[in-house]
């Protein structure tokens, strides 16, 4: 008989849940992890990892097409999509086995099945075979994540109207695709499909794509994507009532700001308008866990209103990001274990879009900073003035640092360009350590490196950049 008494039950084994479970075990808590599907969750199976594996293939393909630029010759460079998918699956698999190994190594008891709260200290697990197990614990952590949001009245059909999940399980590349939503997910698929040769159209309601990012950076990316032939409509809405699906294509109208209508069409429609927290059918209402606007409500230690019940990750809203889920999980568990963890400050959380080139931010955009009453100074540095980026043959883009004129405090960092995903972590550390812009400038950056752009942009904040 399997053990059913625990210190902690984690419901949902995505990034947030499995990291929390491992940390709990490390802290000496007897821990159970319940998942109805594969541990690793969205991020590992339908999110971060599979998308980036395919995006990497897209990037390498792009490099190959420019072989001559590097002094290389090659005949017949081409994509073998089934092989790219197989490669993606291999990476996912390797990491999946890794997570399974880590859970075992840390002695986390993993229960496969659908979990439902039965009171504040019990979870009932229903396995595929119909059997149920009642688990009991001092505390419960909900980490059930999120799923793709549908367009009202236009359900996903897996054929023409697709979610990101659908797209990732397709065996081929559509020759044309209309993407609803110019957020990170939409933009990543747009960049990938464009590199794979599809005709791509993005429709975004707000005035610029990547609406959470700094305007100038988003505009820069818009220019780069447009130059590659991606058609981008912003301040534009998709009229669901105009959607027609025939044997080969979807057709619909996009309504622009001036109310004019433009017809768009594609082999498929990818709906990437957001995610919906998984809160239904979990027994939350019965236990009385408060939910607002679809997300579980928690305090800064991830306690819900019900004693012993905590929640983290996509299911509580905020930034729907894997590293956020993981950190929230660690903080929640450390709180449960009676530690005094450092709390999460949203201004210190890096966000990345893995388009080509990558886009990344931390902290306030220039506009946000001004709206908050800061008198700002801005330092901008273009990648084309950076030696290593020229060497890489990836010199599009720029860094923009936003600082407080009064205190020199680094308020925000915004990057569109090569290696942005790594560079932003340095800026997140700067924010975490409460650095000023001049400290970033005075910290020695090795030459030649891509991240010298940070040093130069920090100098530029005070008009002292050397290389522009």
């Amino acid at each position, binding site marked *: 008989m399997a053990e059913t008494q625990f210190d902690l039950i984690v419901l949902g084994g995505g990034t947030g849940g499995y990291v929390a479970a491992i940390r709990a075990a490390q802290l000496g808590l007897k821990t159970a992890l319940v998942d109805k599907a594969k541990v690793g969750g969205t991020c590992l199976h339908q999110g971060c990892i599979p998308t980036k594996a395919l995006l990497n293939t897209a990037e390498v393909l792009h490099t190959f097409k420019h072989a001559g630029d590097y002094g290389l010759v090659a005949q017949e460079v081409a994509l073998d999509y089934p092989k790219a998918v197989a490669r993606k699956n291999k990476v996912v698999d390797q990491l999946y086995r890794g997570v399974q190994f880590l859970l075992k190594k840390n002695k986390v008891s993993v229960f496969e099945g659908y979990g439902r709260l039965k009171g504040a200290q019990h979870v009932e697990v229903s396995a595929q075979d119909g059997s149920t197990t009642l688990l009991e614990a001092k505390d419960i952590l909900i980490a059930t994540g999120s799923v793709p949001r549908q367009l009202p009245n236009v359900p996903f059909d897996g054929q023409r109207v697709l979610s990101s999940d659908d797209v990732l399980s397709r065996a081929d590349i559509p020759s044309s695709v209309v993407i609803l939503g110019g957020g990170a997910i939409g933009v990543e698929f747009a960049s990938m499909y464009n590199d794979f040769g599809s005709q791509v159209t993005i429709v975004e309601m707000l005035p610029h794509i990547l609406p959470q990012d700094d305007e100038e950076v988003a505009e820069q990316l818009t220019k780069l994507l447009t130059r590659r032939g991606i058609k981008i409509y912003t301040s534009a809405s998709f009229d669901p009532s105009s959607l027609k699906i025939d044997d080969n294509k979807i057709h619909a109208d996009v309504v622009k700001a001036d109310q004019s209508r433009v017809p768009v069409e594609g082999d498929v429609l990818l709906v990437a308008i957001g995610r919906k927290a998984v809160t239904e059918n979990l027994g939350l209402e019965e236990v009385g866990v408060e939910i607002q606007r679809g997300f579980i409500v928690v305090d800064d230690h991830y306690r819900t209103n019900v004693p012993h019940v905590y929640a983290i990750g996509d299911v509580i809203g905020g930034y729907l990001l894997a590293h956020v889920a993981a950190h929230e999980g660690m903080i929640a568990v450390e709180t449960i274990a009676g530690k005094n963890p450092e709390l999460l400050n949203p201004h210190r959380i890096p966000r990345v879009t893995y388009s080509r080139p990558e886009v990344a931010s931390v902290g306030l955009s220039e506009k946000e900073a001004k709206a908050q009453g800061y008198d700002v100074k801005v330092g901008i540095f273009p990648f084309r003035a950076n030696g290593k980026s020229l060497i890489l043959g990836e010199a599009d883009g720029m860094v923009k640092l936003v600082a407080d004129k009064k205190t*020199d405090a680094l308020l925000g960092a915004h990057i569109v360009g090569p290696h942005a995903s790594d560079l932003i972590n340095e800026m997140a550390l700067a924010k975490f350590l409460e650095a000023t812009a001049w400290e970033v400038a005075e910290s020695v950056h090795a030459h030649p490196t891509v991240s010298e752009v940070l040093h130069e942009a920090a100098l530029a904040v005070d008009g002292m950049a050397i290389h522009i």
Partner: protein
Amino acid sequence: NTEGASESLRGRYSPAVRRLAMENHINPDTITGSGAKGRVTRQDILNAVAKQAEAPKVTPSEHE
């Protein structure tokens, strides 16, 4: 403009400095930083703790 830099660091501490100060009941704002342009370092906090320890102590009982 790095002239007003030490001014700019007023009130800006790394979490480690903050934590060390809190644990030792020291207000970091009262400390002159020895780091880059006056940044308060962990060592500055430790030095302040040592100084406090040296200073003649008033026993709590006398106060209470």
